[in-house]
């Protein structure tokens, strides 16, 4: 796990008001995830969620729609088709929102580095607060990452969502470059 190195321009002056610090305590201890099974990493989510590792003891739980969720788990490789929907989901989520990238596929393409269908680098398109290494990350690694995310939120370090707002043009340009059209076209196959 490591935090991303920013290679984009703007970062916001960072001061938290007192109420934000209090709010961050609540946000850290109650993380609702949007479990969008984008790839194979989703296979280790059921063990993490269920009785053996029990994610709920950290205050985390699955939520049905992006609007309700706080954290978007990108569980593995993203094909271009999924990426459109991920961006769509990410933009639907309410601030503050966090993103965790699972596995080497989101980090650098992993085993699919030469695939014509999958993207190689997630933080080009949406801001990623945390990466988990591994293919696929074990439940222990996932729990560890959640712990780290909680600590980051408490310290106010998980601010990818601010970064997205500040550098929206940069992100959007990347999205357009890779996807041509970001808007999801639903009727294409009818």
């Amino acid at each position, binding site marked *: 796990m490591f935090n991303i190195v920013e290679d984009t321009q703007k970062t916001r002056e960072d001061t938290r008001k007192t109420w934000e610090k209090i*709010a961050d305590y609540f946000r850290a201890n109650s993380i609702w995830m949007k479990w969008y099974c984008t790839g194979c990493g989703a296979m280790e989510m059921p063990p993490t969620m269920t009785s053996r590792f*029990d994610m*709920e003891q950290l*205050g985390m739980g699955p939520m049905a729609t992006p*609007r309700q969720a706080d954290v978007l788990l990108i569980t593995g490789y993203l094909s271009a088709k999924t990426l459109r929907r991920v961006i769509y989901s990410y933009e639907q989520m*309410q601030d503050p929102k966090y993103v965790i990238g699972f596995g080497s596929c989101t980090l650098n393409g992993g085993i699919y580095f030469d695939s014509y269908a999958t993207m190689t680098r997630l933080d080009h398109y949406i801001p990623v607060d945390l990466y988990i290494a591994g293919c696929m990350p074990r439940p222990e690694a996932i729990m560890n990452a959640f712990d780290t995310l909680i600590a980051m939120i408490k310290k106010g370090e998980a601010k990818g969502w601010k970064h997205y707002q500040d550098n929206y043009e940069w992100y959007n340009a990347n999205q357009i470059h890779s996807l041509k059209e970001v808007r999801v076209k639903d009727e294409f196959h009818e």
Partner: protein
Amino acid sequence: MNLMNLIYAFGLLLFAFVLQTSITGINRKVIARLQRRRGPRWFQQFIDIFKALSKSSTSHGWIFDFGVVMALGGIMATAMFIPIGPLQALPGLDNIFIIAYVLAVGMLGMAMSASGSGNPWASIGVSRALTNMLAYDIPFMVVIFGLIFAYDTSSLSGFAAIQQEGGILGWNIIRFPLGGLVAMISLQGMLGKKPFDSFIAPAEIASGPMVEYGGRHLGMLFLLHEFQTFVEVSLIVHIFFGGGATVLEYVVKYALIYTFMNIVSNILPRFKIDQAVTFFYKVPLALAMIQSLLIIVTGLGVA
């Protein structure tokens, strides 16, 4: 009604919130044990609600915003009428009909707001929720009418007082077991627990009415849900379990009933909405009719 009443009423709301939210939290722990895991901390539900309230949220038009506020206001207003054991914020106003009508305001606000979000899943959820309401309300009301006929009163504290005279044997669940059973099944429907939770089924309609709610709106919805649960469980405690001579007795009964319902909910799958309606109109409605007829014709069980 004077200023003191209002202060009492708001105190009662605070009490209701703390009570129900703690019990929800403890219940999450209980269910976790049922599912062989550790579960969250007992105050997790508080954190969840405050967190949701601290987030930003998108509006989907004024009906959406207004509906939530109206629903929350309606439910909170209902909760003010509920007696907690011997304590009453607004004495003399704890009539079942008042509660039923004010509760409907909350439900309608919720339906309005969810439909206002424009998401088809939400509309399906709302229509299912209203269908569900129609299904459980009729058997429940038939039983309640029987009881009103038997006791000549329709106030919650009145029911509680009459039952407390007879000790445990005086409880309506013992005197009128059929009616009690119907009421418990209806309570499961009111609370939106399985098997009657098809209107918020995540695997079917992506959590139905809540689909477009996020941040503050969702926080208000959670608050609303806590108050609504408080009202509904309290109804049953007062009408069928003898209310409470002391606050403690009331709280214990309340917690036990809610936990029982929750455990039942977690070992059952859910009905489809049409099956739920058929079920309510078959078994509980028939039982409720029999119970009311018994009360009216034979007076069986009436003290």
